[in-house]
């Protein structure tokens, strides 16, 4: 944790449990108990102001749930989400950019109204003329024309739609943006445009990002610090360069080894066996032990704690 910069967001021992039980009558008839899904389990991290923390992991590891907890779309089951006071003295306001730009924009609204909605809803501008001025300004910031405001979302390509989502997220002048897989639905040539835009906005507007992705090459490009999640828990957290230079948790190593690298393809890579276990019945002890090459008896009953390493990384592994 960088001592020089203050934290914009502190997440402390965050837990979220979902009740995924069968309906009451089914439980009664088939004598089933309730079942719970521990989607996020004891997750703690800090995002430094003006920085970018990324959460990475495979599907079902709980990264999107963390995003929804941070933005308040889900209430936490336990733990705390603390935003530091922003410029105005009130806690920072967070906005969110979603993965699918086809699903996150209302197809019946003109782009102008989509972007103006937060301004109207939060009463940030006094009259319609001011709102339209601000919308024009926002369209300019994300690289669209003012005239594009009169169009409907279907007239835009995926990349342009994601620009509209970003403009909408910026409308309320947030200082904190939660980006949930913002480029996964885009093509590579367009992905670069959006990533460059996000980096530029971060510098110009002093934004802080919580970035969620499964793509490590994108994460490496965007973030200062990376937290790797596995089955609802953070297994390793480190500065970006430290994580890539010296991954300590066997799961992080697996992730880094399995990403196909265009510049340095490895055709004879050793294929790691095994799959992510069901989060409904996570393995005992260290949840990674059934797939881990280093696993010993101890791992199957004793859960490793997150420990701080000399280089600042935090790792949850008995053998790191």
């Amino acid at each position, binding site marked *: 944790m960088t001592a020089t910069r203050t934290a914009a967001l502190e997440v402390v021992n965050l837990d979220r449990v979902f009740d995924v039980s069968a309906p009451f009558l089914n439980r009664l008839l088939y004598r089933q108990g309730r079942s719970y899904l521990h989607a996020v389990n004891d997750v703690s991290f800090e995002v430094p102001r003006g920085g970018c923390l990324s959460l990475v992991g*495979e*599907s079902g590891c709980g990264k999107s749930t963390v995003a929804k907890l941070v933005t308040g779309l889900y209430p936490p089951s336990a733990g705390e989400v603390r935003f530091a006071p922003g410029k105005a003295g009130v806690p920072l306001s967070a906005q969110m950019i979603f993965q699918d730009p086809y699903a996150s924009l209302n197809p019946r609204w003109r782009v102008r109204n989509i972007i103006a909605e937060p301004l109207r809803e939060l009463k940030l501008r006094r009259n319609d003329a001011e709102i339209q001025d601000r919308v024009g300004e926002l369209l300019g910031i994300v690289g669209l024309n003012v005239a594009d405001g009169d169009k409907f979302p279907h007239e835009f*390509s*995926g*990349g*342009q739609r994601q620009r509209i989502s970003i403009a909408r997220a910026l409308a309320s002048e947030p200082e904190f943006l939660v980006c949930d897989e913002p480029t996964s639905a885009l*093509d*590579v*040539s*367009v*992905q*670069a*445009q959006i*990533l*460059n835009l996000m*980096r530029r906005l971060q510098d110009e507007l002093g934004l802080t990002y919580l970035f969620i992705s*499964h793509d*490590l*090459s*994108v994460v*490496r*490009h965007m973030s200062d610090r990376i937290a790797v999640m596995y089955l609802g828990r953070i297994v390793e957290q480190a500065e*970006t*360069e430290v994580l*890539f230079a010296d991954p300590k948790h066997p799961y992080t190593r*697996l*992730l880094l080894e*399995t*990403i*196909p*690298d*265009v*510049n*340095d*393809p*490895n*055709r004879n*890579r050793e*294929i*790691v*066996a095994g*799959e*992510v276990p069901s989060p409904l019945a996570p393995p005992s002890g260290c949840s990674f032990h059934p797939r881990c090459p280093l696993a010993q008896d101890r791992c199957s009953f004793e859960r490793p704690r997150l420990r701080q390493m000399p280089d600042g990384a935090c790792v949850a592994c008995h053998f790191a």
Partner: protein
Amino acid sequence: MLDAGHPCLEVRNLVVEFPNRHGTLTALNDVSLTIQPGEILGVVGESGAGKSMTGAAILGLLERPGHIAGGEILLTGRRIDSLGDREMEQVRGREIGAIFQDPLTSLNPLFTVGAQLSETIRQHIPGITRAQTRARAIELLREVGIPGPTERIDHYPHQFSGGMRQRVVIALALAANPRLIIADEPTTALDVSIQAQITGLLRRLCKEHGTAVMLVTHDMGVIAETADRVAVLYAGRMVEIGPVDQVLKSPAHPYTRGLMASIPALGARVQKLHQIDGSMPRLNAIPAGCAFNPRCKSAGRRCYSERPDLVPTTAREAACWLYEGGVE
């Protein structure tokens, strides 16, 4: 490679059109490619570039009103684009296997995996007994690396995980020992650690059986590690084709060059990623001349009027005036 002379698949000047009330959209324009037995050809491009369309045209599964308006498709020297529906059904499955993106929708949730495999096996191997069919199904599941195939054969698709389901789909595609497999985004719905298992499996099967594979994907990393040759599509046209290491390491066409440069590198971090401005034209607004001209930094006068053909440049082919008489 077979020395019989015929490549496994040969596509010559394929044109696919979609007529609608405003005119005709050309989804694929003059696409030619060949795949040798035992070879993996990667087909890459952005969404809408026509990569899945190429696969659908070869399989004879174009959605109406789309149709093949020109060119020919030859499977080991025999034309298959002019076959009737009934004959094409025999070709699909027996000679060409297909693997689609989402393993959950390619399997019938109401039948066990064994029943679905058996149906395909019986369909294509006439006169096979019930016991032989089951033995073959178990052997196929074992071959694609599903642990405990004798028990798993009686399970339903929902009892398998995503990666295992995709293996079942691959087993289905292999059931009749096809010469060619068309794999349309086979790893896109899977997690990275599973993705590597599936591409490894495809490569192994391809080498062991001499099956040719057409691997359609948007993921350059998958191509780099799986394919032998790669074809790059842009707005329904092929812009570059060649051996994978050459095309990815030193791309010739400006589009391929931009595409490769815009991928964030794992090795080092840069301040700003290279970006190709704009986006791919829609099919109803493809510019005259080279389709890439509005986004191309090296475009000259000639690029706006004349369409470049694929020309050989050192072991690969690129469709760009830079390699044929200059852009002016």
